[in-house]
C-alpha cells in the first residue's frame, strides 16, 4: 500500500533523513523505532507532507505522492496523529473533529463522529469544551479521533504515549487495536518498545537518519538485543 524509497528529507539545509526505504502492506501495522534524533518524526512528517523532500519517492496505492500537498494526501487517505497532538486549541472538541472530516460530506462526517464517540465515550461530555482545556489523555483521544474523521486508509501515529499516564496509554492502545482490527493500516512511531511490539506486524529501526534494521515484530520481540543496539544514540 505504501512504498517509501530512498527518502531524503529535512528542514532547510538540515538533512534529518538520508535514504530511508520501507514498505507497508494494506492492513499491516509498522512500528518505526530508533534513538532520539534518528529521524523517526521527520520520516512521518515527510509522509504527511510537512517536511521538504530532497530525494527519493513515496508511492501510496499506485500513485506517486512524493510531491503531493498535505491536502492531497489527506484526500487520498493518509491521516496523521502528530507528535504533541497539535489540536486546534481554540476550537471545541466537536469542531476539531469536524475539521478532521473537512473533506467528507456533512452526512458522512456525522456518521464518523458517532464512531469516534463510540471508541472514546469520554469525549461525549467534552464535545463543547475548548480542546485546549482538555487533559493530555483526552487531547490524545481527540487527536486520534480527528484522524479517524478523515476516513483514512493509512493512519500514522507519532508517540501516542508521550506524556500520558499509564491508564491513558492503555485506552489509546486499545483504540488503536480496534482500528487495526477494522483493516486500517497503521504506522507507529513509539519509544515504548513493549507497547508497540504488542500491536505491530513489522518493525523498522532507524539510526542516524537511515534504516538500520527491518524485520517482523516477532523477530524483534525474540531478540531485544538487536533493537537495543540502535537505541542508545550516537555515543
Amino acid at each position, binding site marked *: 500500500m505504501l512504498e517509501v524509497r530512498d527518502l531524503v528529507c529535512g528542514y532547510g539545509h538540515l538533512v534529518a533523513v538520508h535514504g530511508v526505504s520501507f514498505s507497508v502492506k494494506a492492513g499491516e501495522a509498522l512500528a518505526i523505532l530508533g534513538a532520539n534524533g534518528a529521524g523517526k518524526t521527520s520520516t512521518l512528517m515527510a509522509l504527511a507532507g510537512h517536511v521538504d523532500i530532497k530525494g527519493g519517492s513515496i508511492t501510496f496505492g499506485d500513485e506517486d505522492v512524493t510531491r503531493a500537498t498535505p491536502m492531497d494526501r489527506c484526500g487520498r487517505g493518509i491521516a496523521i496523529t502528530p507528535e504533541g497532538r497539535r489540536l*486546534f486549541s*481554540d476550537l471545541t472538541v466537536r469542531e476539531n473533529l469536524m475539521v478532521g472530516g473537512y473533506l467528507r460530506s456533512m452526512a458522512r462526517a456525522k456518521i464518523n463522529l458517532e464512531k469516534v464517540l463510540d471508541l472514546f465515550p469520554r469525549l461525549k461530555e467534552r464535545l463543547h469544551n475548548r480542546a485546549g482545556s482538555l487533559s493530555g489523555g483526552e487531547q490524545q483521544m481527540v487527536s486520534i479521533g480527528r484522524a479517524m474523521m478523515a476516513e483514512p486508509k493509512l493512519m500514522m501515529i507519532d508517540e501516542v504515549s508521550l506524556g500520558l499516564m499509564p491508564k491513558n496509554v492503555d485506552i489509546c492502545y486499545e483504540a488503536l487495536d480496534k482500528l487495526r482490527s477494522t483493516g486500517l493500516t497503521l504506522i507507529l512511531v513509539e519509544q515504548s518498545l513493549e507497547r508497540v511490539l504488542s500491536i505491530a506486524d513489522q518493525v523498522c529501526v532507524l539510526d542516524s537518519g537511515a534504516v538500520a534494521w527491518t524485520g517482523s515484530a516477532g523477530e524483534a520481540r525474540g531478540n531485544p538485543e538487536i533493537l537495543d543496539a540502535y537505541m542508545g544514540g550516537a555515543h
Partner: protein
Amino acid sequence: MLYIELALQGLVNGSMYAIVAVGLTLIYGLLRVLHVAHAGLFTLGAYITVLLTNATGSLVAGTLISMLVVGIVGMVVYRLLYEPLLAQPPYVALIASIGLFIAMEEGYRIIFGPYGNSFASTWLTERVTLGPFSMAAADVAMLLGAIVLLIFLAVLMGRTRLGMAWRATVTDPAMARSFGVDTIKVRYGIFFVASVFAAVAGSLVAVLNNLVEPTMGDVPSYKSLAIIVLGGLGNVTGTLLASLLLGVIEAYGTIYTGAYLDRDAIAFVFLIAVLMIRPQGLFGAR
C-alpha cells in the same frame, strides 16, 4: 439629550473604526502581522468608489466594483508581500507593510493629485428623522453598513464549515492542511473579506466627508491598531466592542477634554490606561 446625541455620533465613528479594524484583527489572528497597509486599501476603496460613481452616476455600482477590486488587491498584497515573509519575525512584515502604506499614499497623490476628489453630487445634507433624533443619512448608512457586515462576518466565522476551517488555520496551519483545509485559499479568503470591508469603510467615509484624499488612511492606520489591541489582538468580538467604545469615548473626549488633549491623545490615554489594568486588552487575546 446632548449626551445621547454625542453617544450616537460616537457610535457612527466607532462603526467606521469597526469595519476597518475587524479586517485588521482577522488578519492579525491569521498571520500575527500588524497589517498597516490595510489603511491604504481603505483609501483605494474610497478612490475607486468616487471615481466610478462620478463616471457611471451610480453609487451602488461604484461601491460594488470598488469592493471587488480592493478585495482582489488585498489578495495580491498577501501573495506578494506577506506570504514570502511568513517565516520571518513579525516586525519584518510590519516594516514592509508600513513601506507599502507609504508607497500607496504617495502613489495616490502622484496619480490622483494632492487636492482630493469629491462626488459630483452629494448626499451630505440628506437627513433621517427618528422620533426625537435626527441624523445625517450618511451617518445612518454607516451604522447600518457596520451592522450588516458584522452580522455577515459573525455567521461566516461562527456558523459555517468555512469559518471553522479558517479558525483551524489560525491555530495550526500545517495541521489544518493535513486534514484537507486549503490554507492558502483560506488566507486569500481572509484577505479578500478583510479588504472588502476596508473598501466598504472607505466608500462610506467618502460619502460621509465628500472628500477622498491620499492621506485619508493615516488616522485609520494607527487608530485601528490601537483598537485591535484594545479588543485583544485577534479577538473579533472584542475588536467590534472596542471600536464602538473608542468612538464614544472620543466623542465625549473631544467635547469635554479637548482643551487639554487632542483626539488622538484621548484615544491613546484610554488605551494605555486599559492596558495597564488589563494587559491582554479589554476582552482578552485569543
